[in-house]
């Protein structure tokens, strides 16, 4: 397929690995922020193509993995109500709450439906006026314009039985949280190409300057990643700390203006809890008061549920790049995709799930 196959060329990948070997003179650690990139790296074995000096650290960039247990528990409570049709992206269904997941709510008779787009959930609401339709609006900046459009259209069309349970997260504050941690050992970042497709690259410049780290906006195919890694390493070897854009075929410097305008109209920036990591200031989006009628957490009036994380799960360390999945004692023994202890084992973009799927043999 055009714009896919040519970026998976194995020959070119080997030549990139060769070129990278030539420019590297010292050990460097790079973090890929986005779970989609982690998936490509582990699936195509890109980390194994790299010279031993280069370590890839997997970052917190999977919205499925960082949605807090409290909100998962809220989703379970709402989805269990008889009048509710609960719509979600497929990979949220197995994410463990304190006691169960959406899939088990569904097995117990809850009307839980997988949708491809938030607009599909809105269409269900328009067709089922006697039911309450709730959409689980999770995601990074990439998904925010789609979810904002669903809220905006619901208000315009007066679809009063449609609401969103929002747990949106933002990437730059998470990068800043990682960089300002004393345990931080990241020398350079590969920023998530699709997040920057929406937001542009400008918000990364102050981070690159303040923390003296190169940040390379990178795409998702193997060649994109190798190229992003090469650009980042070149900056490090040359002592530069700039924002560069590897994914120019998709990402414009200013991002997508109409999408940004829609996000601003519907959402406001709030403090947000990240599963396994903790609270990060100004790192999330919530519905503005003008959209209160479509805010599921107001509509269903849920407060504290007393959420609890599995004490055995080390996903907080995995999400911050401080622990590799293979180093977690529960990995592949008490924790598998069929019976996950933590969210990073659920989503295909979670580091634990990617290692489970593609690194079976070397697991010890």
């Amino acid at each position, binding site marked *: *397929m*055009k*714009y*896919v196959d*040519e*970026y998976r060329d194995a020959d*070119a990948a080997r*030549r*990139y690995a060769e*070129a990278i070997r*030539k*420019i590297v003179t010292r050990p460097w650690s790079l973090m890929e922020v*986005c*779970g*989609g990139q982690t998936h490509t790296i582990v699936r195509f074995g890109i980390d194994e193509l790299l010279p031993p000096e280069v370590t890839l650290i997997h970052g917190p*960039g*999977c*919205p*499925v993995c960082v949605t807090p247990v409290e909100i998962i528990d809220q989703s379970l409570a709402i989805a269990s109500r008889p009048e509710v049709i609960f719509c979600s*992206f*497929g*990979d*949220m269904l197995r994410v463990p709450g304190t006691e169960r997941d959406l899939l088990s709510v569904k097995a117990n008779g809850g009307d839980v439906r997988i949708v*491809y*787009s*938030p*607009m*599909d959930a809105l269409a269900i609401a328009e067709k089922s006026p006697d039911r309450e339709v709730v959409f689980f609006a*999770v*995601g*990074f900046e*990439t*998904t925010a*314009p*789609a979810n904002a*459009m669903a809220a905006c*259209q619901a208000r315009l069309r007066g679809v009063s039985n449609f609401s969103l349970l929002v747990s949106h997260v933002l990437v730059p504050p998470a990068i800043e949280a990682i960089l300002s941690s004393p345990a931080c050992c990241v020398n350079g970042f590969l920023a*998530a190409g*699709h997040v920057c*497709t*929406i937001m542009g690259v400008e918000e990364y410049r102050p981070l690159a300057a303040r923390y003296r780290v190169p940040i390379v906006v990178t*795409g*998702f195919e193997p*060649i*994109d990643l190798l*190229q992003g890694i*090469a650009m980042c390493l070149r900056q490090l070897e040359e002592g530069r700390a700039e924002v560069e854009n*590897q*994914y*120019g*075929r*998709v*990402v*414009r410097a200013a991002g*997508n203006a*109409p*999408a940004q305008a*829609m996000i601003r109209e519907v959402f406001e920036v709030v403090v947000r809890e990240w599963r396994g990591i903790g609270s990060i200031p100004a790192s999330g989006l919530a519905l503005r008061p003008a959209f209160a009628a479509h805010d599921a957490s107001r509509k269903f009036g849920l407060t504290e549920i007393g959420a609890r994380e599995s004490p055995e799960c080390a996903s907080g360390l995995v999400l911050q790049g401080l622990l590799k999945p293979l180093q977690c004692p529960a990995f592949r023994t008490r924790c598998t995709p069929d019976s996950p202890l933590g969210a990073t084992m659920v*989503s295909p*973009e979670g580091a634990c799930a990617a290692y489970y799927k593609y690194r079976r043999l070397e697991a010890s």
Partner: protein
Amino acid sequence: MCLAVPGKVLSTTDGILRTGRVAFGGIVKEVCLAYVPEAEVGDYVIVHVGFAISRMDEAEAARTLAYLTEMGELAEIAGEEP
């Protein structure tokens, strides 16, 4: 869930929201084009959860694929230095 994939715009329809039929290999899907008003039939767009979020830039795509050559040359020049 953050997956966003390139597809080719086959046709467009102007309604409350501009939409288009987009082909991904063999699969065709109805996609919202509200965020890429510049996209026309024949263009490639990047689609995420039913929304096109960017129009593919052909010239930049070619540049990306040429980067290795550029890098190879530079690496050779660097390697030739005494």
